[in-house]
């Protein structure tokens, strides 16, 4: 039994297919959808954690790729480079889970890793490029 966290991107034309259903049915995988969204150009994105037999997971990934879903290992970590950060807090408006927030006492940026679901929406919003992915 292994666990893998993946970011799945569904192109517009297959966004309506019951793909996660087949992950259960055909590959006997347990999954936990940590986040799902339809991005503006109508591409679907999903952060999913798969649990099951290692070979089955590999087969499932192959199935996903063959169907046209792009599969990426989820970023290991979002890192805030405190040497670059100017504590403006614009990223807190983007962060849906509020893993990024401004401390209401000292007005500095706080990053709560446990709340971060690695959606990466914040990556291109930082004006001083202080938000990075550690892969």
């Amino acid at each position: 039994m292994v666990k893998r966290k993946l970011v799945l991107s569904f192109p517009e034309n297959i966004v309506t297919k019951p793909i996660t259903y087949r992950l259960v049915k055909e590959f006997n995988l347990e999954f936990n959808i940590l986040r799902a969204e339809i991005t503006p150009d109508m591409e679907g994105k999903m952060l999913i954690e798969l649990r099951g037999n290692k070979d089955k997971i590999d087969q499932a990934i192959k199935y996903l790729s063959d169907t046209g879903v792009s599969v990426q290992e989820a970023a290991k970590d979002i890192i805030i480079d405190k040497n670059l950060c100017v504590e403006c807090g614009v990223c807190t408006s983007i962060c849906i889970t509020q893993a990024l927030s401004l401390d209401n006492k000292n007005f500095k940026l706080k990053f709560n890793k446990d709340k971060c679901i690695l959606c990466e929406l914040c990556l291109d919003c930082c004006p001083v490029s202080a938000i990075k992915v550690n892969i």
Partner: protein
Amino acid sequence: MAKTIEEINEKIKDGKVLVLNAEEIIDYVKEKGVKKAAKDIDVVTTATFSPMCSSGAFLNFGHSDPPIKMTKVLLNDVPAYAGIAAVDVYIGAAELSETESMNYGGAHVIEDLISGKPVKLKAIAYGTDCYPRREIETYITKDTINQAYLFNPRNAYQNYPVATNSSNRTIYTYMGKLLPNFGNATYCSAGQLSPLLNDPYYRTIGIGTRIFLAGSQGYVSWYGTQHNPGKERLANGVPCGPAGNLALIGDLKKMSPEYLKACTFHGYGVTIFMGIGVPIPVIDEEMIEFLKIKDEDIYTEIFDYSVQRRNKPSYGKVNYRQLRSGKIKISNKYVQTGSISSYFKALEIADILKKEIKNGKFYLTASVASIPLEEECNSLDILSKEEL
């Protein structure tokens, strides 16, 4: 009882000056009242740390041998304006690199110069009898060149709108990344710490006012471009949107990269975080009435930046306390907010300025001319000569 700048400077000299920052004065007035506050407090320090595109620097390189009258100039591949005398240029913060596009620009050149880093200078010329050289490629630092001063045509805006996005796609603006369907909202003002919100009718801030400019002592050189003091105001004098602003000048060589930071708004371009601090002398009780302003008294308007027009639809007004809470309501939907202006850095600057005044390192200046309270802000319409 009225206080003059001379009297305040005398107190600075004697080490008897009472300086508070624009946040501290709020509680001071609440506890002790306006009269006592006006008597006790001599100076209130205000500040802001925000991206301000309309910034740039004049540089003079000195003459090469044989000399050159530069016509096209690149600094680390970023074009600088050379249409002034032979070796003078103006490098604008928002100018983009010819090789790195939005990843590097005029703001980065300015920050690199301030940090003491070498900058590659390339220039070409048509050659004259007095300036025969036609091209040059060399490296400069702030120590090898002559005068280098920032001259920022539009800084320290008195209030600014809130930006949001009603459309169904993510948009990338100078107000940051705006998610679809009112996914977020961004704002950009130091609010209760902001210089021109603490002196809304420019009673003390004027041309010639000495200020903290990115770590140096700079000056207000003029009123800023698009200065629009006639904007609708609340009873407390606060304009509910971008009204007045300042043109600032200061010595680049004395600045610190801590208080000036080049930045890129993805999909929009390069701009520069400017750290500005303005001391406001407590000349009378009326000044306290303005200085005691707090975030919840300052309102601004929400605009839909997905409408690509000069006039954008408004979604009403909110105050800065609501904005700083992290969420506001737009069209019955809760929307997460984020500030582009760093309150942390603004507070830091207000405190540095406070310390400098207390320690006798910063003296106040009376303005030599006032900032206009009446000035129209025109729009650009496409007209024929006959229609003008």
